[in-house]
């Protein structure tokens, strides 16, 4: 029925339609002013009401309404009520439901949080349909329901019609027609005459309800108290969530506290092997790793390798793409071993053979690296006299001979630190000269010459971080091979300790030690150094490679490589350091002179 607004009821034109009436019957106080909203007429039958509606409509009134105890067909037409816009509101609600549901799902599952569900595409219309359907229904219903409220001015807690006690029968056996005073044609007498003509037995003004409108004070008090108390449980919960307690936690929100999920390394009865952690399914590649090429996983140019050494390339495929553990162990053993003397390498019992010299290390050796063990240690201490005939001399050895005293290249050399005390390093060089006959795997492998990742600040930062975590403990933050572990070992004087290599030696520069080879060394280890493939992510290992290159470059940098903006700063630092060094040198010279004086 017609919307009819209580709030604006007092604003109508005073000259035209404002009435002051004295209602002697109900009000004893004569001074009461009453606002008249309109006039109502009572009818006893549907037909008389419909008839009256038509006459009122034909007389040109538009702000009218009818009240009946039951729905009356045709009353809209009789009153001249225009068709409602409600269907359009419902349609708009339904369409927006469809759009919201589809865009929500496309955004969530196809863009923001891509997740394969049941092997379907990220954006999969059939799967989105049920939600789209439900949301369409929901919003169309909301549109119809709340649209009806809005169009009818609901919720309306009181209606001036209620002031007339006779109106109560509108829910029982009487029919009422109402003409609003806001109607353009409204004129009290005219309306009364018209309604009388229609045969109404009862015509009365509809006046403003004069019962007190103020809400009683205690109600506010009760409301206030209720609101205040309703906050208490919330505060309790919040307190519990942010404070510590020695007692067991009170779980208001369970989060995932009691989820049956297993932690790493736990036992479960769910799987036949009782392992809660599931190994990769053989022959599968975990999600997100499919894009990594075999080259990237191994640091080897596999295409080239396949031409040179097909069986090994095949083994790489088995080891890295098909999850063949055996193949992987073989591969790792091969690339991580340090030139074991041929005779020893051949013999399976090589460990025994060599153990006479290094018993302590043999014990700790595990199967995979067993073969390298003897080799690792030997070069350090027994190289001098040893045969090392076929020994596939790795590239590291050659630099050793060129600058023996200063930079014993790789770990196999007892390392510079020891060089101070032990005069051995220089002795490694002679061997290098004699063993060019059979190149090692490390030499022949077609290593990747370049880091496959794009080198940028982010990558270097990641590399620096990982280097700091995993490498620096031995190799030192600056890569000079004097990390904390090394210092401790030196301090304790462990005679089995093989000092880590300095990374700043020409043999380890990119031209002699390609990126792929460095990567392989990080991944699989070399001699004493264990492989880090299981601890450092693939991309992080490549990031370390890039950082090591940066570290090396930092030792050979020229001023041209520094951005102009920072040159001044660096030059200043350089002069300061130089001055400081000179000062120290002078002091040292002075002290020496004094000592000489004293001694002499």
């Amino acid at each position, binding site marked *: 029925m017609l919307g009819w607004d209580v709030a604006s009821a007092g604003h109508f034109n005073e000259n035209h339609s404002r009435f002051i009436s004295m209602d002697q019957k109900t009000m004893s106080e004569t001074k009461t002013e009453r606002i008249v909203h309109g006039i109502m007429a009572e009818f006893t039958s*549907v*037909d008389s009401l*419909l008839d009256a509606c038509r006459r009122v409509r034909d007389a040109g009134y538009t702000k009218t309404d009818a009240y009946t105890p039951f729905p*009356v*067909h*045709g009353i*809209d*037409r009789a009153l001249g009520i225009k068709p409602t816009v409600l*269907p359009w509101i419902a349609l708009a609600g339904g369409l927006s439901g469809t759009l919201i549901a589809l865009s929500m799902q496309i955004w969530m599952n196809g863009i923001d949080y891509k997740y394969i569900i*049941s*092997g*379907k595409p990220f954006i999969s219309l*059939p*799967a989105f*349909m*049920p939600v789209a359907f439900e949301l369409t229904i929901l919003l169309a219903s909301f549109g119809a329901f709340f649209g009806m409220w809005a169009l009818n001015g609901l919720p309306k807690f009181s209606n001036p019609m209620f002031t007339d006690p006779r109106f109560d029968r509108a829910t029982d056996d009487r029919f009422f027609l109402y003409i609003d005073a806001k109607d353009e044609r409204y004129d009290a007498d005219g309306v009364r005459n018209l309604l009388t003509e229609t045969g109404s037995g009862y015509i009365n003004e509809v006046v403003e309800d004069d019962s007190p409108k103020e809400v009683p004070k205690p109600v506010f008090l009760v409301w206030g108290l209720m609101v205040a108390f309703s906050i208490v449980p919330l505060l309790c919960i919040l307190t519990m969530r942010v404070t510590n307690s020695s007692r067991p936690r009170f779980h208001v929100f369970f989060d995932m506290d009691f989820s049956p999920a297993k932690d790493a390394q736990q036992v479960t009865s769910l799987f036949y092997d009782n392992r809660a952690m599931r190994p990769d399914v053989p022959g599968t590649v975990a999600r997100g790793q499919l894009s990594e090429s075999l080259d990237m996983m191994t640091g080897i140019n596999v295409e080239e390798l396949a031409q040179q050494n097909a069986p090994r390339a095949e083994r790489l495929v088995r080891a890295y793409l098909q999850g063949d553990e055996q193949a992987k162990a073989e591969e790792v053993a091969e690339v991580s071993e340090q030139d074991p003397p041929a005779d020893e390498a051949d013999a399976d019992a090589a460990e025994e053979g060599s153990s006479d010299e290094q018993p302590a290390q043999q014990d700790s050796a595990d199967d995979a690296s067993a073969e390298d063990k003897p080799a690792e240690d030997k070069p350090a201490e027994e190289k001098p006299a040893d045969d090392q005939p076929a020994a596939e001399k790795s590239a590291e050895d050659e630099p050793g001979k060129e600058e023996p005293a200063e930079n014993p290249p790789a770990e196999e050399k007892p390392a510079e630190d020891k060089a101070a005390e032990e005069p051995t390093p220089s002795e490694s060089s002679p061997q290098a000269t004699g063993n060019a006959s059979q190149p090692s795997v490390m030499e022949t492998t077609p290593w990747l010459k370049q880091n496959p990742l794009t080198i940028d600040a982010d990558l270097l930062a990641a590399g620096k971080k990982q280097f700091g975590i995993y490498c620096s403990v031995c190799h030192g933050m600056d890569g000079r091979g004097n990390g904390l572990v090394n210092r401790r070992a030196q301090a304790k004087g462990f005679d089995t300790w093989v000092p880590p290599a300095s990374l700043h030696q020409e043999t380890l520069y990119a031209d002699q030690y390609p990126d792929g080879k460095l990567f392989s060394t990080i991944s699989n280890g070399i001699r004493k150094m264990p492989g880090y493939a299981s601890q450092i992510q693939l991309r992080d290992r490549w990031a370390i490679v890039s950082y090591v290159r940066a570290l090396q470059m930092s030792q050979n940098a020229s001023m041209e490589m520094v951005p102009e903006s920072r040159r001044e700063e660096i030059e200043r630092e350089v002069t300061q350091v130089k001055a400081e060094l000179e000062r120290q040198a002078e002091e040292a010279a002075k002290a020496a002179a004094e000592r000489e004086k004293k001694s002499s």
Partner: protein
Amino acid sequence: MSEHAAPVVKPADDPAFQLPASLASLQLPLMSGGLFALVVGVGLAFLVGSGGALDQGSNVMPRFGFSAYLTAFMYVLTIVLGSLFFVLIQHLVRAGWSVVVRRVAEFMMIMVIPMAILFIPIVFSLFFEGSLYVWTIPDFAERLHLDESMWNTKKSFLNGPFFVIRAVIYFGIWIAMALFYWRGSTGQDETGERAATDRMQYWAGPCVMLFSLSLTFAAFDWGMSLAPMWFSTMFGVYIFAGGILAAHCAITLATYLLQRAGALRQEVTVEHYHDLGKYIFGFVFFWTYISFSQYLLIWYGNIPEETEWFFSRQRGIFGYLSLALIFLHWMLPFVGTMSRHVRRRPGLLACWAAYILVMHFVDIYWIIMPEARALGHEVVPTAGGVLGVLASVLCVVGMGSLVLGLILRVAGGNRVAPVRDPRLMESIVFENI
């Protein structure tokens, strides 16, 4: 209550309740022409299907002949059964509005008796192994390398004798229900007894249950078993959804044509069309809801033995028909019948009804015809070329005309509305708003 003069219920012998002569004169041409078209159509269909080997990757569909007949049969049968359900539901809920159009539905409902006769060729097909249902092929399991024990279990349900017994039961149930409601309604035309209405209402509940079960199993038998290794528990509802939609369309169209010819001019008003239109609109979506649900479950489960049915319907011409069903069986009529302004224009609504009746044929065709293809997963079903399409259309037009002629014949001997139904007055003055 409305603005025109108070309506009166006309006497039972009023010409408004008689089948107009212009329509009555059509019965013979329709029947004979329909029979002729049906025979020619089936003949053509067998011609199209001839020469196709059972399981070779040829484009010829070896079971085309009987399949085209079954398509026409299922098309008419679903409308007939939909009308039966319409009558049952009106009694079940004591509907007052529908009384003036109920007799039209009853005319279609009683056609279940001729449909039982038209079913005989399908029984006949069982004697020619693999001419319609592939499970009649003795070595079907071996050909498709099916597990023998599983196939034996299937065979205990899908075998000739049991198939015929079930068909007899289905038709027994439907004919009994149709006759009961036919006699109750036409009997009331003479006696005007109120007890007939009460009796029909009393039995409506059990009848609806029996109807649902029998229709579901009939759909499994006659439609689903065309692909014996495929199964969908929604298939019965799917057939029902199309049938009830088509029945409402047929009632609308028939009533409109009756009025055009001169009958029921004052009795059926725009209000009845409005209600029929609401049902058409609702059942368009119901059909979509059911068919999409069936598709969604199978698509999501992604099990080869289930997806195979849709897979064969996504290839060749049937791929386009699948899309046509989405856009032309759902979206277009859904939008088209959404507005009440459309539903309150009888001529426009009758056009939509006719359109949906055509689309219902596409739906049934899409369900049945792909299964006429040769065995093997790689075989793409075809429509059989121009001749095949012509044969399919001739079959359905022929059978439809034949049944329509029979309807006119029955209608000529009866009144076209339940003239003494106690709710007739309520129906005549019915108003939506």
